[in-house]
């Protein structure tokens, strides 16, 4: 006998802290691109979100990406959309969510990068600050 399967859940009014952990470089694999689609959808649900770039994930937001010769889709403009979502959340009193876009300082510096190299505005956090922030999350989605 099969159990009944519910396909709809009542999540009315529920708000949680989501963290999206990006640790992989772009283009070598699809994780960066598809993870970005997860971030975007969470905006539609007005959820709090921390979009974190750690380890090789910091390479995802390096500006000036040009994929023409490699023949792949350049998805870096989508980070600009994320940045706008964050600005809207910050400025529009009708949008009830807090977004933060953060980069781990050690990961950035080890790769010879500075915040100037990024296409979007980010908060650069020390490892201890990032550890505290991670520890405060309800749902951590990684890829």
């Amino acid at each position, binding site marked *: 006998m099969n159990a009944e*399967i519910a396909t709809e*859940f009542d999540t009315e009014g529920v708000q*949680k802290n989501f963290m999206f952990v990006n640790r992989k470089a772009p283009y070598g694999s699809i*994780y960066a691109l598809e993870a970005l*689609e*997860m971030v975007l959808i969470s905006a*539609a*649900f007005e*959820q709090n979100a921390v979009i974190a770039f750690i380890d090789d994930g910091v390479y995802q937001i390096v500006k000036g990406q040009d994929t023409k010769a490699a023949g792949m889709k350049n998805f870096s403009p989508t980070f600009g959309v994320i940045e706008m979502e964050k600005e809207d959340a910050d400025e529009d009193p009708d949008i009830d969510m807090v977004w933060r876009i953060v980069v781990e300082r050690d990961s950035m510096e080890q790769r010879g990068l500075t915040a100037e190299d990024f296409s979007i505005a980010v908060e650069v956090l020390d490892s201890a600050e990032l550890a505290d922030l991670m520890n405060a999350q309800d749902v951590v989605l990684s890829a």
Partner: protein
Amino acid sequence: MKFGVMVNEGPFTHQASDTAYRFTKAAVEGGHQVPRVFFYFDGVNNGNKLSEPQADDRNLVKLWGELAAAHGIDLVICVAAALRRGMKDEILAEGFRISGLGQLVELGLATDRTVVFGD
């Protein structure tokens, strides 16, 4: 307690689907609920009904379908990830359905814990 499970890799290539399956089975057999398993990235390939492992190997597509039927688990394949990979209705195994990425966020909201399995 309610657990949401996310699977990021296809069957066989990485152990993610195996571990997620064993975890989900232990959870529901231990009295917890797993209302939904969400398949994203290459995880969408777990719903391919054409999968035909060797006779002495496990059949993950079938195992997921059976577990879902027995314990009322909603197996959701992400439509965007699936289209790109050619994982369409024509080859969708029993027990799975194709839907949007919003179902993942909803799962995070509806459950007490979200656990991700990937590469």
